[in-house]
């Protein structure tokens, strides 16, 4: 019943894009058959269901508790990648693997073995490699041994956790696991493997562009394609099969200024298939532009220190939002900690700091013209593709749009089935072991266009009697291999600035380089004066998961920018051999 209702509503919401309509015809209707009857033909799913049923019925150590919940998540990945440097291939890689992640819970949903950090002991779900062959016997054998290991760990953890709690008063008693209606889902978005020779040729061609950039010291182009298929069953009867396919293309370039300061930049492109990558001419243009950007940075000027209004445009706005605010949208329960014997004052001390947004539910976290929605149902925004789309999360919870901030006020957080204060139910956001955004859409009421935003900045300069202001246009992203600041992130929550300009009252711009955004934190965002009308869409890995961020330009009233501190290596002694002629 649940399943039927869910599928039909999904079909309606997905009918908008042409691609989705086609997919609905080929995949979703037969999906019913696959999920119900087809299961019986899938040896992997059959092995999972059979071993799970046997474990729930029989797995028990004498005098100890039986599991009350078991889930198996079998993830297989087929990855391909090529890379090139300076027109020459760097190597290729093709791999497939299949792993299982097993969760065995003992105790009760109110108090079980999870949300507990034992001293010097693994506490999370247990994983193991599985055969890539759809071999029922071999897979079941591995599931048997891994479930055994997971169960033994769980009973041991529960007894340790109970022992720790005997001597402690919990300031906050929340259940460890929230209830969830049954769901059975199939969401298949497979992709054809890419032709590695063709990809290598493209990588060579794109990377050869740097033979025209004497100012660039090192560069590379990487193309990857990954198909991920996930099968899930749990002892409550929920299950899903989900697959996705993404092609990524990353180019990066680095050099040093004459004074030795490191400079770099990157481009990152995501597509759902080889065919939907941008045309080669566009890719070539974007890599050329990357070379030009890095070269231009070499002659930009340094900024000693700046306090005043800063306008984050385009990619920089999306990155600063993703880096500074977005991590706080994830709700993670604070684990019970096992102290190592000596234990001091016994509580409160150790462990990860609590997410400050837990105390902000219902309160203002952004100016009141902002709304933030995490919408995993969207595949595009204003005609541009989004890549965080997902129908079901890693715990089998169907996803849905979640309004996180409405008129500047924090409504809820992204959560898994582990409840936190104020967020008792899963929002279907669990990916790779932690709740993460999918497509995070930030909109500002009464947003301005680019020219009007710059005019606002100039107006502020005049009001404050400042000689100049700063516009930040690109920010580093460490997972994409840039951000070569000599001091790393320093103390900042934001990566270093890649492209920025000084803006003078007459509107004239002068390029800047090597800037750190000092002291920015989530409360800094409450001081945004005005935002842009059109969001910039940035698709980047966020805590290991590809997420799309749609964020308009942001004008901050007052931020501190400075040049990085630390020791800087000198530029190369010999000239680049290719240009040393």
């Amino acid at each position, binding site marked *: 019943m649940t399943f039927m209702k869910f599928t039909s509503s999904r079909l309606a919401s997905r009918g908008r894009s042409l691609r989705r309509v086609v997919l609905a015809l080929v995949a979703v209707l037969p999906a019913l058959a696959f999920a119900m009857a087809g299961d019986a033909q899938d040896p992997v799913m059959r092995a999972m269901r059979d071993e799970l049923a046997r474990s729930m019925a029989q797995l028990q150590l004498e005098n100890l508790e039986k599991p009350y919940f078991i889930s198996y998540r079998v993830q297989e990945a087929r990855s391909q990648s090529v890379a090139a440097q*300076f027109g020459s291939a760097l190597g290729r890689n093709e791999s497939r693997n299949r792993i299982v992640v097993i969760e065995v819970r003992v105790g009760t949903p109110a108090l079980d073995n999870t949300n507990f950090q034992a001293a010097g002991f693994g506490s999370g779900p247990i994983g193991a490699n599985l055969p890539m062959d759809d071999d029922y016997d071999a897979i079941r054998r591995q599931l*048997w041994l891994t479930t055994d290991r997971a169960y*033994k760990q769980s009973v041991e953890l529960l007894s340790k956790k109970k022992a720790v709690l005997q001597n402690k008063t919990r300031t906050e008693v929340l259940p460890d696991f929230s209830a969830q209606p049954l769901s059975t889902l199939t969401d298949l978005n497979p992709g054809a493997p890419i032709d590695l020779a063709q990809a290598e040729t493209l990588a060579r061609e794109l990377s050869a562009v740097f033979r025209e950039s004497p100012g660039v010291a090192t560069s590379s182009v990487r193309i990857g394609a990954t198909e991920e298929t996930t099968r899930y069953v749990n002892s409550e009867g929920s299950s899903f099969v989900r697959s996705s396919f993404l092609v990524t293309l990353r180019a990066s370039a680095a050099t040093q200024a004459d004074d030795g300061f490191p400079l770099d930049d990157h481009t990152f492109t995501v597509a759902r298939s080889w065919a939907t990558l941008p045309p080669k001419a566009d890719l070539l243009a974007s890599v050329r532009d990357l070379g030009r950007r890095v070269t231009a940075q070499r002659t930009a000027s340094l900024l000693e220190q700046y306090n005043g209004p800063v306008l984050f445009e385009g990619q920089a706005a999306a990155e600063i939002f993703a880096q500074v605010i977005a991590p706080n949208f994830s709700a993670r329960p604070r684990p019970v900690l096992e102290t190592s014997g000596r234990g001091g004052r016994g509580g409160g001390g150790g462990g990860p700091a609590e997410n400050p947004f837990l105390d902000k539910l219902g309160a203002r976290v952004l100016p009141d013209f902002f709304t933030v929605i995490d919408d995993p149902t969207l595949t595009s925004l204003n005609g541009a593709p989004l890549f965080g789309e997902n129908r079901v999360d890693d715990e089998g919870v169907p996803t849905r749009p979640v309004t996180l901030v409405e008129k500047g006020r924090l409504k809820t957080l992204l959560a898994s089935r582990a409840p936190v204060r104020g967020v008792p139910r899963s929002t279907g956001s669990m990916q790779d072991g932690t709740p993460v955004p999918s497509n995070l859409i930030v909109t500002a009421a009464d947003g301005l266009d680019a020219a009007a935003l710059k005019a606002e900045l100039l107006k502020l300069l005049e009001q404050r009697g400042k000689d100049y202001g700063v516009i930040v246009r690109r920010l580093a992203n460490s997972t994409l291999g840039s951000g070569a600041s000599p001091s790393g992130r320093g103390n900042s929550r934001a990566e270093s600035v890649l492209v920025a300009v000084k803006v003078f009252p007459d509107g004239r711009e002068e390029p800047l380089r090597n800037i750190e955004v000092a002291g920015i934190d989530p409360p800094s965002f409450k001081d945004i004066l005005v935002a842009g009308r059109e969001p910039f869409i940035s698709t980047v890995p966020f805590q290991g998961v590809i997420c799309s961020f749609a964020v308009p330009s942001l004008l901050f009233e007052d931020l501190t920018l400075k040049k990085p501190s630390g020791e800087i290596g000198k530029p190369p002694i010999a000239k680049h051999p*290719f240009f040393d002629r």
Partner: protein
Amino acid sequence: MHSSPSRFTLARLAPAFALACLNPTNATAAELPKNATPVLAAMRAELAHSTTAFTSQSQPPYFLSYEITENRRVSVNSSFGALMASTENTTRVLDIDLRVGSPALDNTHAIRGNFGGGGPTGSGATSIPVDDSPEAIRATLWYQTDRRFKSAVEQFTRVKTNVQVKIEEEDKSADFCAEPAHTYAEAPVTFSVDRRALEERVRRFTAPFSAHKNIYSADASLTIGVETRWYANTEGTLVQTSQPTCRIVISAVTKADDGMVLPRFETYFAFRPEQLPSDAHVLADVKKIIADLEALRTAPIVDPYTGPAILSGRAAGVFFHEVFGHRIEGHRQKRADEGQTFKKMLGQKLLPETFNVYCDPARPKYGTTELGGHYLYDNQGVKAQRVPLIESGVFTGFLMARIPIDGFPTSNGHGRKATGASVVSRQSNLIVETTKPVSPAVLKEELRKLVVAQQKPYGLLFDDIQGGFAITGRTSPNAFNVQPIMVYRIFPDGREELVRGADFIGTPLSAFSKITAADNAPDIFNGVCGAESGWVPVSAVSPSLLLSQVEVQKKEKSQERLPILSAPAGKS
């Protein structure tokens, strides 16, 4: 083949000549050998370009070498008859040895007082293009050389300070030695395998384990690859070698009812796929592994014991590798924190005079078995050579890289490393031979005689081993541990009984003094050896040995219970 003597050589002959300077002309003058690919030419060109630029520096390098290692490899794995992994990749990585200062004292000098004793540490290998494009290869060489130069200058400053603040070193030998230049190039081995066929094959190797519920893991891997290396240095050495290797490894594990983990391994090595054993051969061994594991599960546990024992050829090979081989690696005689067991024992008798021991990397085969520790040039471009270690029972020498020690000023072609690590002296093909072998039956008879003479209830036969380890440092007891898998008690009446749970332990000199005889059936262990310069392929060859006394201790035991449920019944 040989270039004219460089100023480098002069520096060694006259240590007072403190600042040897690098002479870029040697590198550029060396003629490219026939079969050289554009990679070697690009390396030669960039050696000249970078070193010319460094002449403007106050402290230019006196030595620079590039080593590019290409690995083309297909690797497939199975477990219980199902495919676990299948990978195919090609990588090329660059290693650079750049030295500033002089051969007498340079940036690689061990810094004393640091944890682990300092010494050369690898700075990691860098990916370099796999296409033979000179422009792209040189771009990477150029950039990495610059980085290495800067860190070398920094390190050399630390070295100079350290030398001044610490007490005088016991071993006053130089940090580097001159070696003649070589030019050599063999054509890169072409490589094409049918990965699907290999996958089928590796599945077959572990399928028989599926029927055995007490076997908790059963894995096989089949790896076929070619390693092509290009080496060029400022002395004019230009070497290009290409070596295919194939390995099959089978491992399976059972547990005794008391939780003791009991593994069995089988490995096969060959240079070419067609020389690997047939499926029928491997499957016969798999059958034997299964029978051994079933027998081990219920075998009695051996109590701590001292008494006579036989080490089978493979066990004896590993024993020599751990107990002797690691201790005669030259660089260990120089580090203040090393045990230096054999340093002062040159010319002394270590074994009965019927024993000869040597390392010979140039040798590709022993009998009909191929040797994994074979190579033509080491990782410092030095030609492989046979090194006598024990002659007629007398200790004669060390394995040397280009790291001189007192009395051993030059390399003997044993400078080895994995990519990304710094070279130290390592073993190659370690071969133990005897001039007075006896038959295996006589060796067993000798054992029984010793058992009776020593009034022991039984002797031990270590038939198969899993591996071992040796501790050579000074901060811990200088012990070795050889981990046998198949151990038999041999009773005075000739009865044999399989036992489990014994580790063969001891200290090197006392163990050596107990070796009394060897048989005429040498066996070969082809494995990989891990030490501070990474994992390198090695072999050990030895006849079975009779020791008048060994000591065994109880094996470490897992505290995990057996699985609660029995293995699932198959449904396929």
